[in-house]
């Protein structure tokens, strides 16, 4: 059986698609929010070197990615193992090497990868302006503005995606997600004013 066909079968049997969608949204949102926090914090302290943001952002990305992978993988594995044990009891046979067992193991790994990659994906997009700024493409102030705009846009788009899958108002869902980012920005700007 072809590799892709196998993967498709495992996804279908393990019903991992909605779970990974949830993980993707949740963690991409986390990634964007974290970088937004770092960038606004950098703006508040008026940084002069973009590498401060880049390295602290990459450190956070790595931590989010690893914790996302390990957390989701272990949680899913435990849940799937529990389900498989119950099924094995009903079937009175071992299912570890059957397609059911393999699909369960695949689902744990898949959920872990999605959970690990999604915050890194959002975070790297938000950090991109600082990479460009470090190569003198534009100023650090513009990089800060662009990065904040990108983080807020990612949040809005994730909301739109949620609205689309739930068949509800996409703009409203996008605005709800955006509001969280705006609250963070607003709090930090208030802090800057009180400095």
């Amino acid at each position, binding site marked *: 059986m072809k590799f892709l066909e196998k993967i498709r*079968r495992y996804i*279908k*049997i393990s*019903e991992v698609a909605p779970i990974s969608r949830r993980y993707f949204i949740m963690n991409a949102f986390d990634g964007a929010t974290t970088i937004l926090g770092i960038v606004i914090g950098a703006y508040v302290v008026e940084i002069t070197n973009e590498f401060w943001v880049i390295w602290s952002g990459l450190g956070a990305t790595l931590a989010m990615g690893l914790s996302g992978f390990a957390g989701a993988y272990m949680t899913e594995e435990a849940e799937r193992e529990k389900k498989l044990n*119950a*099924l094995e009891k*009903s*079937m*009175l*046979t071992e*299912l570890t*090497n*059957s*397609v*059911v*067992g393999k*699909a369960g193991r695949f689902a744990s790994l898949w959920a872990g990868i999605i959970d690990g990659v999604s915050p890194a994906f959002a975070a790297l997009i938000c950090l991109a302006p600082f990479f460009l700024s470090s190569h003198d493409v534009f100023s650090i102030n513009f990089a800060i503005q662009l990065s904040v705009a990108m983080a807020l846009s990612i949040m809005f788009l994730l909301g739109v995606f949620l609205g689309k899958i739930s068949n509800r108002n996409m703009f409203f869902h996008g605005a709800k997600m955006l509001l969280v980012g705006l609250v963070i920005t607003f709090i930090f700007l208030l802090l800057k004013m009180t400095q």
Partner: protein
Amino acid sequence: MIKRLVLDVLKPHKPSVVEVSEALSHLEGVEGVNVIIYEIDQQVENAKIVIAGNSIDFESIKKMLEEMGATIHSVDEVAAGKRVVEEVRTPQDRSARM
């Protein structure tokens, strides 16, 4: 040369009967498959599987079903040889019922 095989199988809900029948139909020597679910439980379901073909390999059928997470409860009918011999009613069957 097995030409028809009727199996009583216990399987999990997933993979579905569609996937199981498709997987069995792709095996060598198999020309047609019919799967009927006759009992559904909370975790598992019982299925009657009829497989027809020119040269059915029982071991490969068993292996595929195990790979699908299913187990064979019983082999209920086997038709083998150059032609398929149908079950016939005999006077003994009638008297046995009486």
